[in-house]
């Protein structure tokens, strides 16, 4: 057993100390969302959980997450009972803040545990790399910004995801991996985006014979089917009994939202909208028809139905078909390589990519869906790493608009720059040389991309204000950031596709 320093526990302790210091930091409406859920689950009977709407932040996570809130509310009752009153909208006494922030830090221990299992599961020669990767996840600026300032429970949830991925490594624990993923789906349905990869992998590796697709292993099929159906039955059964399933569906999948989220997530649709906007002044010269309704649209396609002035309209169906298609492509390889864990994790990553890039109303926070599984295999060799690099920069930089208050500005930038400098350097040292030749162009492009980030961040954070003042053209830095990030995410996606299929 090799000891690696600093250990996960040591990093977790220092990181926890830092996170406690962030108690008074800015918190988004998600804080109130979760407080409201604590109140709903604590003070109302289960039948009313999904009907309660005193607050605009209704319960829109699946039942297990509601149960998780209920468990926490039992402790909250001892801290400050007032936070458990449904009518106390916007209640944020210091006890409430300390309590909720503490639960985020404590539940993140699940992530620490999952990462330690991950390092244990890796064979000895790659242990060092796995340790570095797990430290990078533990200290991820994404989790730092989203969980500990903005406020969510991603650390806990990604802990479960990583645990499930680690359990998928061995044939003997595959069943538990499937069960755990089913539980995770019943906590937060965003993981549905990854479900296809799990389905194909479990089907091929667990339910069918490794040598022949035509020899099903009935014992395994029954076991897995029983367990997964059981998990869903526990979660949704009671609500089915009360005839509330349709209500749950409406709450969990609110399709009335627009194509792009208020802050453009750096995906294909952001680039599409950007192109559309850029074409408006050119349209008359190119002789393109302009949709004048879109020009006058108040929301400019941010909320509600998106309307494009020149480019064709995008519907939900289009996004679904695109997402599905691009998810299927990597799954072919999973199907052909039964039991190959690296391929499986690669497929999860690519499923994350396609849902992030093509999905409907994607939130920029969903970038973690790509970064975290990718981190697990980013150090496989240098080719993987060179695809990961632009993603690490773009993905984290794209989270910056989540925190817009002056006091948090140094926190998010310095923390992210610290993380990028440290881990990109260490990854570079640790990643083994690939067996296959590298693709020269990708390498150089990614280096160029990285270099551009420095002047861009400086411009967006300081330069713009110095040149144009505080309130002129303030959309410009945001647009630059978004386009830059989108370029990085798409570039790393293309790069990773190539690596994935040539590996």
């Amino acid at each position, binding site marked *: 057993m090799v000891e690696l*320093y600093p250990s996960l526990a*040591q990093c977790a302790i*220092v990181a926890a100390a*830092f996170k406690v210091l*962030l108690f008074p930091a800015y918190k988004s409406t998600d804080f109130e969302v979760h407080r409201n859920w604590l109140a709903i689950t604590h003070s109302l009977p289960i039948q009313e959980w999904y009907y309660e709407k005193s607050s605009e932040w209704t319960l829109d996570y699946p039942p297990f997450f509601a149960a998780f809130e209920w468990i926490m509310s039992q402790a909250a009752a001892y801290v400050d009972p007032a936070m458990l009153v449904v009518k106390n909208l916007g209640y944020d006494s210091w006890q409430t803040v300390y309590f909720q922030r503490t639960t985020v830090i404590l539940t993140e221990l699940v992530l620490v545990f999952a990462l330690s299992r991950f390092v244990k599961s890796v064979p000895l020669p790659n242990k060092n790399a796995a340790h570095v990767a797990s430290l990078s996840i533990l200290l991820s600026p994404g989790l730092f910004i989203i969980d500990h300032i903005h406020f969510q429970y991603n650390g806990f949830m990604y802990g479960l995801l990583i645990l499930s991925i680690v359990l998928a490594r061995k044939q003997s624990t595959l069943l538990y991996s499937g069960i755990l993923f089913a539980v995770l789906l019943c906590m937060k349905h965003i993981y549905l985006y990854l479900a296809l990869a799990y389905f194909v992998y479990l089907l091929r590796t667990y339910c069918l014979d490794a040598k022949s697709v035509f020899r099903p292993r009935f014992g395994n099929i029954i076991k897995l089917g029983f367990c997964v159906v059981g998990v869903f039955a526990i979660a949704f059964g009671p609500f089915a009994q009360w005839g509330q399933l349709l209500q749950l569906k409406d709450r969990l999948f609110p399709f009335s939202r627009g194509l792009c989220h208020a802050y453009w997530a750096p995906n294909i649709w952001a680039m599409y909208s950007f192109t559309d906007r850029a074409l408006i002044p050119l349209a008359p010269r190119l002789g393109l028809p302009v949709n004048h309704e879109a020009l006058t649209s108040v929301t400019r396609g941010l909320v509600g139905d998106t309307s494009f002035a020149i480019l064709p309209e995008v519907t939900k169906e289009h996004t679904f078909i695109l997402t599905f298609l691009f998810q299927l492509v990597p799954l072919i390889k999973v199907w052909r390589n039964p039991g190959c864990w690296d391929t499986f994790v690669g497929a999860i990553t690519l499923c994350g990519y396609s849902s992030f890039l093509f999905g409907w109303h994607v939130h920029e926070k969903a970038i973690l869906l790509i970064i975290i599984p990718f981190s697990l295999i980013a150090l496989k060799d240098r080719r993987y790493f060179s695809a990961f690099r632009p993603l690490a920069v773009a993905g984290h930089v794209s989270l910056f608009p989540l925190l817009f208050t002056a*006091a948090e500005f140094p926190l998010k930038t310095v923390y992210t720059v610290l993380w990028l400098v440290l881990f990109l350097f260490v990854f570079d040292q640790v990643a083994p040389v690939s067996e296959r030749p590298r693709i020269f162009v990708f390498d150089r492009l990614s280096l160029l991309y990285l270099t551009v980030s420095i002047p861009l961040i400086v411009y967006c954070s300081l330069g713009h204000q110095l040149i144009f003042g505080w309130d002129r053209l303030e959309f410009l830095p945001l647009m630059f950031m978004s386009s830059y990030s989108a370029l990085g995410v798409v570039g790393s996606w293309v790069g990773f596709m190539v690596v994935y299929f040539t590996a």
Partner: protein
Amino acid sequence: MANLAPSHRPRPRKKGRPATSPGSNNNLILDIGDGKQTPAFPLVSFLWAARAGVSQWLILPLILMAVGLFRWAVSLWGYSGFQVPPMHGDFEAQRHWMEITTHLPMAQWYTYDLQYWGLDYPPLTAYHSWLLGKIGSAFDPEWFALDASRGFEDPNLKVYMRATVVVSEYFVFIPAVVTFLRRYTRMQGVHAWSASIALAAVLLQPGNILVDHGHFQYNTVMLGLVVASLDAILAGRMLWACIFFVGALGFKQMALYYAPVMFAYLLGVCTFPRINIPRLFGIALITLASFALLLAPLLVGAANASTREVYASSPAPPLLQTLPIQVDKSSVLYALIFQLTQIVHRVFPFARGLFEDKVANAWCAIHTFYKLTRFDATLLQRASLGATLASIIVPCAIIFRHPRASLLLPALSAVAWGFFLFSFQVHEKSVLLPLLPMTLLLAGDGGLSKELRAWVGWANILGSWTMYPLLKRDELRIPYFVLTLLWAYLLGLPPTSFETYRSRLPRETGAAQFEPSTLTTLLHFSFYLVMIAWHVLEAFVAPPPGKPDLWVVLNALVGAGGFGIAYLWCMWKLLTQCRKIDLQAIGEDSQKKKQ
């Protein structure tokens, strides 16, 4: 350490350590058998990957960013005087100075409405406030509007003020500490890796962060100028040392705690080994010139006609009244003397009592058992002066006789402890002054050994502990616990770990001298126990009726005892180091004679 061992013992081969590294890395890497190595304390493991030598261009920015994050995180918390009208606290005082310096002519800086946080820091602070006030007014003039902005509490103003502390620290304290440590570790033959670890430990010192970024002050600017002065001494640039030290004095009069040592050292350098008159002359001249430069803008500001009229009609400062000379009230000279005496009067408030509040020094401790108020104020002042002089005379004499750069740190800490314990008008925050040179000892040879770490760590933790009543008032309880415990954890100290006090080496290897003795262990453990017990008492037990300050007084008493011990330890450290140097000198002499 290993090279001190008897020659027949084979020296254990260490992998991954450059051949040039001195023995002091042995303090950081523990052999646990089978050729396996572990870091001696958590801070080492955070820099574990760098032990084979990673570029300073990488390590340094990473350390600076990490410690900066902790500073900024603390600054999110409360500050002194938040929502406490009518006077608020140190935050308001600093903001108010930015307000008056940017709006009033220099002649009025030290005279304007003295009842409301009148400027009582030396000129460099005034100029610093002026600069920050000008920059801040560019963001929002409302923050520093004259009179209208009193007690202004806007979140943006808080961010700006907090940022000024961080930026000032990164412009002064941090470059000074980085260059000082680089020079000092090279001089002491300490490996670059150990130096980085010591740097991280020094920059995470809980007291500095809590007072400057929590409570709100600019101590690190003054401390940084002192460190810059020390750095200049190490580099042999005595004149720069004078300039920086005058800067420190001109920023905050508290730097006087260090002045006797600096004076003794500079005088010693001019006297031993042979008397060097030109150097003495140069030092005196440059010191006077820097003081003149420091005061020049204020004096020029006082000399114009309108100011002269104002001064002539206003009551003279008490100091001027006692001067035996008579000057024509409308002359330029009168205005200059008026301004000068007013500054001195503001900066050195002799009229105040022996001590304010409860502070962990000798006077407050004695006062608890034997009320000092029964004595005349002048008698107390004399007693305080006498006691302070008595406590600093020995270290100053040593430094004068042996003006060696390596003796400066223990001498500075001993003298600063002397001042803290016995001088007049001590604040609990002044504990940062003796703590700084003591903490810098971590970078010296054997600085990260268990013995030194135990003592320096203990003094620092005790120091933050005595500031707890102050920090509690500012709603800084959680940052206090987090930062102090984090620092203790990183350096492997109680209450988080007892590793430092556990002997891992057989005594005969000669390494025993780097480990805390049984007496040290007992002493420190009893203090740690008392501190923990005090926190429990303070949190859960109400003080008896009629004695509402009992816990605070108890804190000050224990603190005074501990600081007395810290003073003695620094003295002992100074004496042993001095003796070592003497012995070395004798050895070299006899070798020369043999040749």
